């Protein structure tokens, strides 16, 4: 680890003040940042600890949730309203990492965790445009079983590893930000970027911008939601593919559906095409399969990850099928 100084922020303004200089990083639970610093992939000169900022989970007037950025992943999963109203979020959180890590990890940190691409991590021995812009990408023609099938670029085929974020994408969450320029709100779908020419930038945050909270709009009472994660061992592994789904039925037609995939792209992948095809139609396996086919029509599999198209399709069919079955 490169030497750095450490300061604890008392409140968001304090955090922004402390983080005013270049080379400062916010520290949440540290479960990703400390690891990356040890690998010298992140080398901040200053850490501003925001894990102690007020972190509350509040019900909003409209019946949604406002979640402080410092809320721990485990606390969020345990919250009564998350369990009852947003099972997709609760399940996504519980599918992530391990209990110890969830006890440390903050909501803000989870949003900004970086890819687990092996070539990104191999700071000594491999080329990676995300880590060292312009150096090249060794994953494109290397081990890429965990990599993207959608939205990748020649410069980068990494995936976003978070489970929680897939649920947030399906829930149409918004992200509340604060910076020296003031506060702003970003739709969740606009937080993470596709790699394009600049894979070194994971998100649309400005330097020094602080995440203060996540807001969840209310879910209609009739909505059912869940999260399904597929991985190489039964627990404590990142997703190969995951599906977050929210569905509302009107008789046997789909009144509304929201779908996000994890493990397939540089960001949680909101399946807008599939949703559009499904809305108003029947929730039959054939219809869901056709919708998935449309969503993955542009999939560009690499050497090791072609199976993800079929896996994601099947997982979607089964997940929606379960939700629909659950209402019947």
């Amino acid at each position, binding site marked *: 680890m490169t030497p*750095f100084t450490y300061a604890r922020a008392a409140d968001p303004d304090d955090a922004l003040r402390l983080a005013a200089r270049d080379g400062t990083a916010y*520290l949440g639970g540290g479960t990703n940042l*400390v*690891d990356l610093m040890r690998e010298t992939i992140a080398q901040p000169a200053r850490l501003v600890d925001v894990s102690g900022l007020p972190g509350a989970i509040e019900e909003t007037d409209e019946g949604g949730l406002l979640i402080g950025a410092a809320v721990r992943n*485990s606390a969020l999963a345990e919250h009564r309203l998350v369990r009852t109203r947003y099972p997709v979020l*609760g399940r996504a959180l519980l599918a992530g990492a391990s*209990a*110890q*890590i969830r006890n440390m990890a903050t909501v803000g940190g989870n949003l900004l965790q970086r890819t687990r691409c092996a070539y990104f991590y191999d700071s000594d021995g491999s080329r990676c445009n995300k880590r060292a812009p312009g150096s090249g990408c060794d994953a494109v023609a290397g081990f890429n079983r965990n990599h993207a099938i959608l939205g990748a670029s020649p410069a980068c085929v990494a995936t976003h590893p978070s489970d929680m974020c897939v649920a947030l994408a399906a829930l149409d969450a918004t992200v509340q930000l604060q910076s020296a320029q003031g506060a702003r709100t970003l739709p969740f779908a606009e937080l993470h970027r596709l790699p394009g020419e600049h894979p070194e930038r994971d998100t649309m945050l400005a330097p020094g911008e602080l995440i203060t909270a996540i807001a969840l709009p209310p879910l209609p009472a009739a909505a059912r939601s869940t999260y399904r994660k597929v991985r190489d061992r039964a627990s404590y592994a990142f997703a190969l593919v995951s599906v977050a789904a929210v569905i509302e039925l009107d008789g046997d037609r789909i009144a509304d559906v929201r779908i996000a995939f994890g493990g397939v792209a540089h960001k949680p992948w909101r399946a807008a095409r599939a949703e559009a095809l499904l809305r108003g139609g029947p929730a039959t396996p054939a219809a869901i399969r056709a919708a998935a086919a449309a969503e993955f029509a542009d999939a560009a599999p690499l050497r090791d990850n072609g199976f993800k198209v079929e896996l994601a399709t099947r997982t979607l069919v089964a997940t929606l099928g379960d939700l629909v079955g659950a209402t019947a």
Partner: protein
Amino acid sequence: MSISINGALAELPQDPRVSLLDFLREDLHLAGTKKGCNQGACGACTVLVDGERILSCLALAVQYDGRAVTTIEGLAEGGVLHPLQQAFIEHDGFQCGYCTPGQICSAIGMATEARRGAASHVTADLTAAVTLSREELQERMSGNLCRCGAHNGIIDAIGEMVAAELAA
């Protein structure tokens, strides 16, 4: 700046790079907490902070200023083993013993979570009361790797502790 370790206050390190794990092992010579990866991937470094299980390898010691840490060395009282330590011996819940302190601390934290009603990935109904089936215990303990393959004994030992708690 100070931190409580098994009830005793200790000065935090000057260098903010020092992890809670290295602080325990190298500075305080409390080597019972183990290092298996230093990357958050094995659970060997699990300790309890204010009763919650965390990974000390990913924790910067300075970040835990003012907190109360319990390590494996702090579980036995007056020379009497914690019931879970005893159960690990009975059920042969270890072979080499290297993952063991982490497994034990983790299980104690796990029991606290379950008592609070926390669900897990395998809980069928997120809103129902928790029952700690074998599968639940396995899922909740999956953040602690064991390469010797003592899994059955570990879960048996924890099951005994949980059953004793329920009976009490």
